[in-house]
């Protein structure tokens, strides 16, 4: 969200009207949002579907005597808003009193402005959007004769939102963005493998469609002829895209609410060595290079840079105002909100690992017996960030004596998060600002168990 005042005056007025109805001893927060999306899918040169839509809604949080109630509706008509407020008030009675319940209060941390809105995208013609997806399909087909295109897509979304609270928060903003993506299939005899590629930007002018097409073709073809490797202990090199997913898993253990509720393997370990000295991790949504850069968090506080792990030593956790009150500290500006349907939770916004200096090729040259992990499958089912058990399906290329070898698939790599963090031997210099909550960089980790044949 951008903090420019009155950027969404109509929504701000709705939020203001809601909180003005607060009674004595009652805290109210209103979050009002409106969004618009375009979604185009191309298949074999024709538009398969074209979706154009608008949605809006309001979520209202009421707190009284330490009890919280919440309600939402996917509409902004006056009757609906009145019944949302009534429902939220009614729901208060059923919450358990919580001494830490409450809304965020302004903390004076200055906002670092971000460019989150593109007039060029807002003005981009529909025919041009269709043409972009068609062009991506053509480029991808042309990249390799073995490649078929499953679908090519263009999507954009724009949204505006306003928050107001009886604790003095009052901000509104707007944001837009777009991406193109393509899914590929590569055939060789009976065997079929899949790939994908994408281009993202504030506006279509930033797209590199040729790169997206090349990557989608590469990802599908590089696994043709892949075999199931043997089971053994091995060194892995994670592609930047895989590292970013790994950091995403780790983020739940750095979440202050999980720590407070006994769900983090990092609880009570601030100041201790939890990772290799090479591992320095920050959450910095103020870095404009980060895809998820933002200026305001889900409660309306300034987003800011927070050190999480420095030289392997745990520095602290990310907090919303609620988790901070529980922990006896201040919000780190890490409240996250999924939309008007829910209340804010806690999360990392834009994680970045401090890069090393060497390229992926140089990292691989140092590995005697290993595997380059190019994609993982089942991180959501095979990793438990509470116990630390780590097991994921994977595919990639074998490495022997510093050389890349043949493709492998249908195997897993396993360890524990605790052990993996200490087993990191090198961080690459190849930072990739991916469209995820973490930037990618190559990572070398030793002693994982590879399970295959």
């Amino acid at each position, binding site marked *: 969200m951008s903090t420019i005042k009155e950027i969404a005056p109509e929504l701000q007025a709705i939020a203001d009207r809601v909180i003005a109805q607060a009674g004595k001893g009652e805290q109210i927060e209103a979050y009002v949002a409106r969004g618009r999306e375009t979604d185009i899918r191309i298949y074999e040169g024709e538009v398969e579907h074209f979706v154009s*839509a608008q949605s809006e809604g309001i979520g209202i949080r009421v707190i009284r005597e330490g009890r919280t109630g*919440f309600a939402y509706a996917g509409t902004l008509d006056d009757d609906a808003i009145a019944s949302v407020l009534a429902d939220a008030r009614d729901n208060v009675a059923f919450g358990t009193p919580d001494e830490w319940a409450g809304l965020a209060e302004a903390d004076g941390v200055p906002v670092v402005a971000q460019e989150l809105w593109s007039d060029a995208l807002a003005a981009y013609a529909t025919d041009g959007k269709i043409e972009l997806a068609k062009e991506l399909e053509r480029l991808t087909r042309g990249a390799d004769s073995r490649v078929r295109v499953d679908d090519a897509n263009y999507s954009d979304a724009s949204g505006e939102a306003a928050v107001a609270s009886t604790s003095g928060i009052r901000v509104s903003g707007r944001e837009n963005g777009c991406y193109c993506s393509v899914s590929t299939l590569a055939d060789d005899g009976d065997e079929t*493998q899949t790939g994908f590629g994408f281009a993202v930007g504030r506006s279509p002018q930033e797209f590199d469609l040729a790169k997206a097409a090349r990557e989608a073709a590469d990802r599908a073809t590089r696994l043709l002829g892949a075999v199931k490797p043997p089971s053994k202990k091995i060194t892995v090199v994670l592609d930047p895209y895989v590292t970013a997913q790994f950091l995403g898993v780790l983020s739940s253990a750095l979440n202050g609410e999980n720590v407070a509720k006994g769900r983090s*393997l990092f609880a009570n370990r601030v100041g201790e060595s939890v990772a290799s000295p090479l591992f320095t991790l920050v959450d910095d949504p103020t870095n404009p290079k980060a895809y998820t850069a933002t200026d305001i968090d889900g409660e309306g506080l300034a987003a800011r840079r927070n050190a999480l792990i420095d030289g392997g030593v745990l520095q602290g956790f990310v907090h919303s105002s609620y988790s901070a009150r529980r922990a006896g500290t201040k919000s780190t500006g890490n409240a996250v909100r999924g939309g008007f349907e829910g209340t804010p939770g806690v999360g990392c916004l834009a994680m970045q690992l401090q890069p090393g200096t060497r390229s992926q090729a140089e990292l691989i040259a140092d590995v005697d017996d290993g595997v380059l992990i190019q994609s993982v499958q*089942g991180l959501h089912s095979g990793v438990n960030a509470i*116990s630390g058990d780590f097991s994921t399906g994977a595919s990639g290329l074998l490495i022997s004596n510093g050389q890349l070898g043949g493709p492998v698939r249908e195997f897993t790599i396993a*360890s524990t998060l605790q052990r993996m963090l200490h087993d990191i031997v090198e961080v690459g210099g190849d930072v990739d600002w991916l469209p995820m909550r973490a930037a990618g960089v190559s990572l070398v980790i030793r002693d994982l*168990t590879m399970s*295959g044949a």
Partner: protein
Amino acid sequence: MRSVIEQDVLERVLGTALRAGGDFAEVYAEDKSSTSAGLDDGKVEQVTSGRDRGAGIRVVRGETTGFAYTADLSEKGLRAAAEAAGAVAAQGGGGTRTVGLTRQAPHPVNVVEVYPDTVSKSAKVALLQRIDDAARSAGAAIGQVSAGYGDSRKRIIVANSDGLLAEDEQVRHLLRISVVANGDAGMQTGFESLGHTIGFEVFDANDVEELARRAAQQAITKLRARPAPSGSIPVVIKAGSGGVLFHEACGHGLEADLVGKNASVYAGKVGQQVASPLVTLVDDGTMAGEWGAIGIDDEGHPSQYNELIKDGVLTDYMWDHLRARKEGHAHSGNGRRQSYMHLPMVRMTNTYVLNGTETPEDIIRNTPNGVYVAKLGGGSVNTASGDFVFGMTEAYLIENGEITEPLREGNLIGNGPQVLRDIEALGNDFAMGNPGTCGKDGQGVPVGDGQPTLRVKTMTIGGTAA
């Protein structure tokens, strides 16, 4: 039950949708009220009330679909969405087309006794308190309990330019229980859930305290678990815990949209032996009360019992309106969508394997060494290669035909077509599994699964032990 939108309005909106051209138009509208409540750390954190209401309109011309949705259910709002959806199908021509709708006979599948809006919020919250108490009483090792309650009542209406007009009401109740146990070697977790498409009476028929104790016991048992093995090993899957294997290993590959794009390993294989002769697999939207049970699908067609694999031979795929129309095939009641904001596509309902003949005891006894999976977590599949993965959240070693020590968590991986052929024992103890949310192309829909105890010759277990 009052209609979400009146019939004459629907007829005029469909006319508007087709004005610019197009050969098929559809209005899907829903009105959904929901209540949810979460308990964590011993406290009811908050009760949430939600209201979602809107309509999605699509217009199809040839291979192209235009789609628009709106939260404005007035005739003006609907006509504006119809024009937006129709614009993409425009091709000069167009003209006036009159649509006359015929109301379909109701197709009730789920019988609801106690509607959620007739139950007090305190009764809903009390369930969570009972769960918290029961889980915490399971042992001193229990460190944290969180529980979630959710109910929803959704009315849908579907009308299309073929004259179809169908309505349904869907009521759902869901409970989720997560437990953390603390031990000398760190923390372990347990999880249980319960979900049915019936009313609040579901909590009379099911013992929620017992469910909470099971989740707690799972976490406590894992405190003494040893690392899961690594490599290819025989796997026995307990009844009602491995339906997700079939959902991932072949269910998705039998969806006609993926087959039509030749993005499934099962394309072109109807009539062929694709699984062990022991396997008969069905997708059954009519299984009353189950999480994937529906009266009509989200395109207005009655749900069906569809046989997909019979004695190992592939009999048919699952179909939605578009794919069925294109191939000249009958639709199978599998056109589903997450909400009015989404286009329908081919989706599963309740997918399960019918009983075999062996007792589960015999299956275990006849497995000299292997892994016994008592609970599977989430999974995913690459339908084109057939490679799939899912997490085992409760598993044990089998040594000399007996279940012995608990194992820590890990992923199980395999290749769908291979695993289907490798099913070498099938039990007579069929059970349905936990309620699931199936994700496809960014949309989640509720699904059920089930199977009897079975053994797969070998699968790859992604543990760390040699």
